[in-house]
């Protein structure tokens, strides 16, 4: 089997030392539950170990994986290695907070077999970082990146965010420049999504912060793409850039290509044979269910062919790989729509694929609705 089609393994570490004000991923700041969570994870791994014989990638995300103590992380990886096999050359990613990065930590992670690290920088501007509720400063992020780039990781990714309150295009350009100076192999540039229920979401609801308007979103997006493309990065997905094709995130691409994946831990999602399921979000509920031998699943759905079709479309339109014409399936006649979209420079149709242009990526969410 092609590595691209091999399943991915995701493990959710639901712990953070502090909560960021924009984040709606599930996590708790008390580390007391770590031992219990590790025990539950072991049980879940046992339940799931026969689902897939071999994986093409591992992604340790959160939360903040680097919030774990070394011996805790060691136990976790021991458990992973005991129950799951990885193909040769599998991508092993871990997310790290710049505040947790030090020489020893990096050595430890390399020793554990990680070959890709994603640093959650978000911004180099101290004011912006404060408003996001991040615990590091711009200087600290630069120091961390310096360490990481010389640590022996040969696949480093940097997470950045734009569309922040009070952020000008100039300030964003400054952050981008400071990141690119380190020549990371990969960059993820996300526009801040204001999620209800988060502290920033509440501020927005009360009208105390104003989300950026569509014109600014448009400018930020185009600027980011043009800036990084000029620096020879490949804009391969709406928010993702890689120096070379081999640095494109193999694990994330499994989500977009609809390859199977197994997610372990609270709130983790899994996908196999047109079935999608997800785990309960609460750590205590997750541990509780597993302690009595119950799978910690809270939702499960079997996709209809129409749903599969829609997924192929909306996921495909987010990537520069595009959508196979065959994915359109049975629809009256896509020709006039495709013609119009080509004429207006939204997509290009070639070699049996509908490929969104840069302009097309901007409206990728509405494209699937046209077909």
């Amino acid at each position: 089997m092609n590595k691209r089609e091999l399943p991915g393994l995701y493990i959710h570490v639901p712990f953070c030392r502090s909560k960021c004000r924009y984040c709606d991923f599930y996590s708790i700041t008390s580390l007391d539950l770590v031992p219990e969570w590790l025990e539950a994870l072991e049980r879940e791994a046992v339940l799931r170990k026969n689902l897939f014989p071999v994986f093409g990638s591992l992604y340790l995300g959160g939360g903040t994986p680097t919030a774990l103590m070394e011996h805790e992380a060691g136990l976790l990886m021991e458990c992973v290695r005991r129950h799951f096999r990885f193909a040769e050359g599998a991508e092993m990613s871990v997310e790290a907070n710049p505040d947790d990065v030090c020489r020893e930590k990096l050595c430890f992670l390399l020793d554990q077999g990680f070959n890709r690290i994603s640093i959650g920088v978000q911004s180099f501007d101290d004011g912006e970082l404060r408003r996001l509720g991040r615990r590091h400063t711009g200087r600290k992020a630069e120091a961390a990146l310096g360490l990481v780039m010389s640590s022996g990781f040969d696949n480093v990714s940097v997470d950045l965010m734009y569309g922040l309150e009070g952020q000008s295009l100039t300030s964003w350009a400054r952050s981008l420049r400071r990141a690119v100076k380190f020549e990371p192999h990969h960059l993820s540039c996300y526009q801040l999504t204001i999620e209800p229920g988060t502290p920033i979401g509440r501020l927005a609801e009360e009208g105390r912060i104003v989300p950026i308007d569509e014109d600014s979103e448009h400018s930020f997006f185009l600027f980011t793409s043009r800036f990084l493309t000029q620096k020879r990065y490949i804009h391969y997905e709406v928010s993702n850039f890689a120096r070379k094709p081999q640095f494109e995130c193999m694990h994330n691409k499994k989500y977009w290509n609809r390859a199977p994946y197994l997610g372990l831990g609270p709130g983790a999602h899994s996908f196999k044979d047109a079935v999608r399921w997800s785990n309960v979000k609460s750590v205590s509920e997750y541990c509780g269910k597993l302690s009595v031998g119950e799978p910690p699943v809270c939702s499960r759905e079997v996709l209809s062919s129409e749903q599969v079709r829609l997924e192929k479309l909306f996921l495909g339109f987010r990537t520069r790989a595009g959508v196979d014409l065959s994915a359109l399936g049975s629809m009256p006649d896509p020709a006039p729509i495709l013609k119009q979209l080509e004429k207006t420079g939204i997509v290009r149709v070639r070699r049996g694929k509908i490929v969104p242009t840069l302009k097309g990526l901007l409206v990728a969410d509405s494209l699937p609705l046209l077909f």
Partner: protein
Amino acid sequence: MANIRNFSIIAHIDHGKSTLADRLIQYAGLVPERQFRDQMLDTMDIERERGITIKSQTVTLPYTAPDGEEFELNLIDTPGHVDFSYEVSRALASCEGVLLLVDASQGVQAQTLANLYAAMEHDLTIIPVINKIDLPAADVDMVREQMEGELGLDSDLAVLCSAKEGRGIEDVLEAIVERIPPPSGSSQNPLSALIFDAHYDPFRGTIVSCRVFEGSVQPGDVIRFMSNGAVYRVEEVGIFKITREPRKRLSAGDVGYIISGVKTLSDTRVGDTITLDSKPTDSPLPGFKEAKPVVFSSIYPISSDDYLSLSDALEKYKLNDASLVYQKDSSVALGQGFRCGFLGLLHLEIVQERLEREYDQSIIMTVPSVEYRFALDDGSTVVVDNPQYYPEAIRIRVAEEPYIKASIILPERYMGAVMKLCMDRRAVNPRFNYPSAGRVEIVFDMPLAEVVFDFYDRLKTITQGYGSLDYDLIGYRESSLVKLDILVNGEKVDALSLIVHRDRAREWAVQVCDRLKEEIPRHQFKIAIQGAIGGKIIARSTVNAFRKDVTAKCYGGDISRKRKLLEKQKKGKKRMKMVGSVMIPQGAFVAVLRSDNE
């Protein structure tokens, strides 16, 4: 037969017809007090909501006079709008008398007159009734004066009542018994019965409402519909007492129903004569004609999958509304549908609402049109009610459109505004009558096309509800007509095409372009909306493209969340129509028709 009275109540809209009918039913004790609800005869929600009667209903009221004599009073309710004049005329033909109801505060209105003339044509006994005498604004003397002056009735004979408060109801009943003659005719003669209505019952088939003039009919008889010769065996006859009450037979003078297994819906025609197959009458009752539509519009299902269901609904609907005519139609933009002919704009609205409410159809209707006439260069003449069939412009020698004589009665103070409205609508040759102090009747000749679209609404708005309208078709006149097309990104939206007078084309085109601009959602690309006559663009608007809608990330492995959001949006878009590469919401087709009441 001497103790039967057949009557209708006629009135201008809102003058209290349904309320009076309610009181009469209540007085007769047909419905237990606690089951009584307002407007018993208006069984449709839409009738109650709008306060108008659409379907005529019939009810037989038992009545015991003060001297102990017992009567059967057949109330044949009539539709209360000018669009339904044929149905009204058939109902009136089934009566010997009418109650002419006038609102004590509003006085004589345009339809009061029209109704009176219709009753006089049928030579009916007319009992003037002044209703709503309880209102603070009631002015009985004024109304009496108007009755004398405008209607030529003896106002001393007017009965006063307040249907709302139940005052004067006995006087009304006594007047019916005293003044309206009993029916004539003999049950020994060959059967001759007039169909004045028909309903569809899913269990019993067609239920025909009729007035028996001669002869009698009973279960087992074989009857014949004289317009088409179809024969049926009678299963049941009876009378209406809110619900159906079977009888052994219906005889001359009776009003009631016949159930005879009529399944072919088009076999029932209001105005047709029923006779016995074995012993037919010599000649049918006079006045039968096919309902003649004057306003046309196409109906399309919002989802083309629902075409068959719409077809079925129309077939069922037509049974209860003989005046609707329809045939298949198709549009590039909207797919398969039906071209329908209506008696007027209200009739159109009612059909639309009933199809949606009662038959659960989601439909789009196109801009209403009238029937235009074109004389072509080869000497032939074509009649066109559908812009799709507009002839090639260079072949048209003479174009003609139908004109009406419109009569508007209004308080004098609104005259300026109403004159302006009418002149804007190409009204010509105004004539003025001053039937009584402070009131004026303006009579115009105007194109029917100008009335079918929102004229009545505008008139009501301008006159704050005091203006009333009645009209008659007076024939065709030469006119300068063009076909206006609407283009969306260069593609013609055939369902929005319109035949219109040249001078009115630009105004309409601008309005449609602006409305569509508001209704069509932004797309990934810019959308041009244009109004064009032939190749010439006369109006334009633009819907800008949206600039960014993509969300930053697709949550870890949570693909479902995003997909569910899209599924929801997709569901919303199902109700849109693709024209070329542009999605047009169904609401846009409706918005184009919305009356502009600024």
